[in-house]
């Protein structure tokens, strides 16, 4: 096999990896006290450099494929990579002010997780999909446990690890079956082979292929937290440190969705997508309903966000049945809007944590508006984004997804959207209502916790970015949706 190195397309990945190594090196060479700030700068810098290299790919590289077709950093990959890098950037900012511990390891893992996510978007081969999944998962397993004094974090990490391994086993088994049926691991090869399975003019596939694709869907649905593969999400979201929860809620979802979209576009001819992908629609419907209604009785904001994430994974699947330009650009747009909303809400949690308050208790939000008016207003806006109420970006995103679903004739998910939107609006409004309830008592800080100014500042920056992003995507969706659309039109 000829050596097919294409560093132009690999540059964003290499930048992230190099950044991680640099951070580890800095930690080795300098004293902890002096190097703490520069390490964060290095991490942010690595993400920005990766983004810099992503721009030409966004405009369309001359040859998006490299490494013998293993890596396909086309415009699709660039769009999802952009969403993922923004999420990584905000997550790094949210991480500022962590307790004194192995910061270099944490940041390096965060960058490697980002690398795995971007890699998933640009996977051109089943093995690369698996590689990306494992890279991001292994990094996240450790990051979830990165809260030295909290048993809950370790428990969460352990649960995620065990269940994630089960899911990975199904995924790899599915890939093996697909390989057995088509004789190739390359996604382009699978696309070719899948379309050659015909008998008497109709598409006819063998048992191995069907089950293989089904198991691959299971493995990726686990990462997206679709019902019934969502079962890990509430415990893990609750147990993980806040920045990690924020990061995985958007990052894992976006990356797994990108891989799923790429795989299914290739594996199932358009005409057969609605019937072949029916299970996915049912999973999506169940996710929307469970995610929306389970939020009703949550008293923990992180668990609430976990269920919200489950419902939102269902919304994303709306793009799948009509896997066209409409669907993929709508999903990318929705991921952006969802990402800003989620990151912003976790930033509010972080702002409370900066004062030593347990921000994940919804009860502690009581009276937030009267103590910190701007935070309260931003929180309301971000929950509007999740509920899909104008002027937030989630409104536009849901609209675009609904259009894609209509085009794909996905009535099940459309009905799910209608029902779950009503329920989740109720859930979110109750949280907003809590923040706007007048109370004289401020929430009590936890014992031993001290206010931490840098954490607060960084979280406020994230909150402002998220609120502005949500607002821009809601009020002036033109430029953003055009960026996405134009980019994807080249596919």
């Amino acid at each position, binding site marked *: 096999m000829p050596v097919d190195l294409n560093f132009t397309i690999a540059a964003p990945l290499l930048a992230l990896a190099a950044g991680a190594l640099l951070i580890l090196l800095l930690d080795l060479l300098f004293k902890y006290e002096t190097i703490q700030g520069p390490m964060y700068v290095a991490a942010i810098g690595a993400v920005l450099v990766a983004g810099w290299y992503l721009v030409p790919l966004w405009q369309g590289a001359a040859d998006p494929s490299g490494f013998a077709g293993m890596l396909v950093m086309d415009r699709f990959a660039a769009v999802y990579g952009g969403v993922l890098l923004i999420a990584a950037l905000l997550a790094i900012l949210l991480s500022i002010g962590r307790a004194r511990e192995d910061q270099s390891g944490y940041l390096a893992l965060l960058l490697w997780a980002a690398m795995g996510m971007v890699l998933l978007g640009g996977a051109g081969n089943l093995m690369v999909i698996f590689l990306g999944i494992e890279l991001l998962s292994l990094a996240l397993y450790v990051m979830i446990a990165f809260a030295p004094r909290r048993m809950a974090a370790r428990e969460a990490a*352990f*649960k995620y690890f*065990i*269940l994630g391994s*089960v899911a990975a086993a*199904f995924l790899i088994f599915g890939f093996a079956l697909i390989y057995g049926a088509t004789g190739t691991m390359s996604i382009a090869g699978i696309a070719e082979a899948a379309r050659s399975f015909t008998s008497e003019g109709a598409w006819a596939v063998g048992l191995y292929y*069907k*089950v293989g*694709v*089904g*198991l691959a*869907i*299971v493995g990726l649905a686990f990462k997206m937290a679709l*019902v*019934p*593969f969502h*079962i*890990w999400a*509430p*415990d893990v979201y609750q147990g993980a440190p806040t920045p990690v929860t924020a990061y995985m809620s958007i990052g894992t979802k976006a990356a797994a969705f990108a891989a799923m979209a790429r795989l299914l576009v290739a594996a199932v001819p358009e005409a057969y997508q609605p*019937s072949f992908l*029916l*299970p996915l629609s049912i*999973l999506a419907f169940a996710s929307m309903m469970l995610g929306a209604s*389970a939020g*009703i*009785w949550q008293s923990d904001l992180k668990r609430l966000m976990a269920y919200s994430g489950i419902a939102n994974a269902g919304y994303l699947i709306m793009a799948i049945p009509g896997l066209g330009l409409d669907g993929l650009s709508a999903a990318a747009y929705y991921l952006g809007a969802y990402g800003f909303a989620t990151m912003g809400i976790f930033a509010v949690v972080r702002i409370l944590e900066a004062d030593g308050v347990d921000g994940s208790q919804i009860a502690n939000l009581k009276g937030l508006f009267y103590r910190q008016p701007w935070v309260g207003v931003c929180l309301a806006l971000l929950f509007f984004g999740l*509920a899909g*109420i*104008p*002027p937030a970006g989630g409104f536009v995103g*849901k*609209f675009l997804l*609904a*259009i894609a*679903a*209509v*085009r794909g004739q996905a009535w099940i998910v*459309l009905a799910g*959207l*209608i*029902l779950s*939107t*009503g329920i989740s*609006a*109720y859930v979110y*409004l*109750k949280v907003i*209502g809590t923040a*706007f*309830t*007048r109370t004289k008592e401020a929430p009590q800080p936890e014992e031993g916790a001290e206010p931490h100014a840098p954490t607060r500042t960084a979280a406020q920056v994230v909150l402002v970015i998220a609120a502005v992003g949500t607002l821009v995507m809601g*009020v*002036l*969706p*033109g*430029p953003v*949706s*055009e960026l996405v*659309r134009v980019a994807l039109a080249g596919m």
Partner: protein
Amino acid sequence: MDLAWMLPAIVVVPLLSAAIVGYFRNTWSKTTVSWVACGSVAAAFAMVVALAVQYWGAAAAEPIRSGLTSWGSLASLGLVADGLSLWWALVVTGAGLLIHIYSTAYMREDESYGRFMAKLNFFIFAMSLLVLSDNFIGLAIGWGCVGLASYMLIGFYFTKPAAQNAAIKAFVMNIAGEAGLFAGIAFIYANFGSFKFDEVFGAIAQGQGVAALNLIGILLLIGAVAKSAQLPLHTWLPYAMEGPTPVSALIHAATMVTAGVYLVSRAYPIYEVASGAAMTVAWVGGLGALFGALVAAGQFDIKRVLAFSTLSQIGYMFLANGLGAYVAADFHFFTHAFFKACLFLAAGIVVHHYNGDQDIRHMGGLWYRDKFAGLTFGAAALALIGLPPFAGFFSKDEILLAAFSQGQWALFTIAVLAAGMTAFYNVRLFSLVFLGDAYVAPVRQVGKKRSRKQAEAAGADAQAHAHAHETPAAMKWPVAILAVLSVVSGWLFFGHVQLTALAPSFPTLDLHAEAINPVVAGLSVAVALVGGLISWYLYRPEGARRAVELNPLHKPGILYNMFYVDTLYDFLFVRPAKETAQFIGQLFDPRGIDGVVNGLGALARELGGVLRRWQNGLVRSYALTVFAGVVLVVAYYVFYV
């Protein structure tokens, strides 16, 4: 002169004012807040008038257009001033201005006055956006924002739990309706590839996408029904009366709840083709008209009577829309906005006299103390009843005529009966509030003894009732203007005027002004008179029924309980959900951990209990769930052909 720049200004000025007033609500004096808030609406109204003069003044009515924002190549959101949108915008900003002025006096004593005015301004922005948009997305955004404004204003008295619950109830029902609307719009885009009214309706005129129009019509209707509180999604409206009275007047009577009427009128090419959807609209409206009028006759809260009256009158508008008499629907919206806003604002004055008590059993004889309230309320009530020459007569007549001339006898009968009931509940309301003896609070309440303290408080209340409150000028003037409009707006705009104004928006219809049909008019007036006279016989100061209802022992019946629709919903949806949850709970938990199940009455917690046991934190049970999912998915593909 090119006035297109005014279109975005009409929308943006109240929004800016809302932001500014909201920001300075605690720093500015209440007078400054009043001037800014009212001034922005006045400016919007002036610009609408200027556009109207330009549009209707020109020889050929050419729509005035302007851009607003863009969704890239997907859609550009613009604004348009044509006959229909100007007709609505005039009422929205005009009535909005009057009610803003009224609020400066009515709400002045409230500590959150600035917050109130900011929210009211926001509503004007949202409603203007709704009626001025030239595409479905802008309409939908305005639609969502008026729902938001309604939510914020119903729950304005946030210390009242009833107000909070009412606000959430209204908002959730509206969101459910919005989902229908959005789905309808998504279908429109999928079929016609555009969101613009002109392009979509142009495609329909050329016969495209006809197959989906009935579905689209029904989906839009779901949105319209929820927003306009029509059957069967009407249950939020009576509770929405928890909001301040100006809000009830502006949002829950004159403008927002009529948005469904606007939607159907605006989307008329769809309903022209989709006859099934159109007939559904007509029947929803007809039944709502009768239902609302019946229930209004059994209510004791003055604002609830008016709320059900609104439900009933919007029913008439839906009926007209469903029968293709769009101009009649819009005309009835026009007159209804004036007389119903007048009724609510006058009711606000009435309630002021009773220190916020809204129970009409605790009123009586107010005419002898406040002739102004009596006169304005009476004029608007006559307009609502639809007696000539009051406004409601002309607009309702057109609706009845549409049903009559199309031979829709069932709907015609329902509408005429509803007219009789309208007279009935209005006479009842007027008589109980304004005539007879003033109510004296009983010292002892039936069923339980009151403490001396309570009795004294009641006595003080009665004394407070005894001396009339002086009504501020800022409250009197808007009511007076609306009362005059309730009297004159019918015959002033009847026939050619409304037709010339609105016809350009219905280019494919063959519209011509019809004279008053003596049969229809005679019948509706006769039925109204009969209903009014029966009511007068029953509820006059010495009437038999009046005595029964004022008796504290009286047990209200089916009308008071709104035909038990709420109870039915509770029985149909809430209770079964609870019981299913309990059943599943026992199924999943054979040993019956009583401590968890017992005492958890609420649905959410029941269901939560089940899910908690599912989400039990044990990895092995999680793995089982995952495995079950895998089996199901794989089974599908094994058997998939």
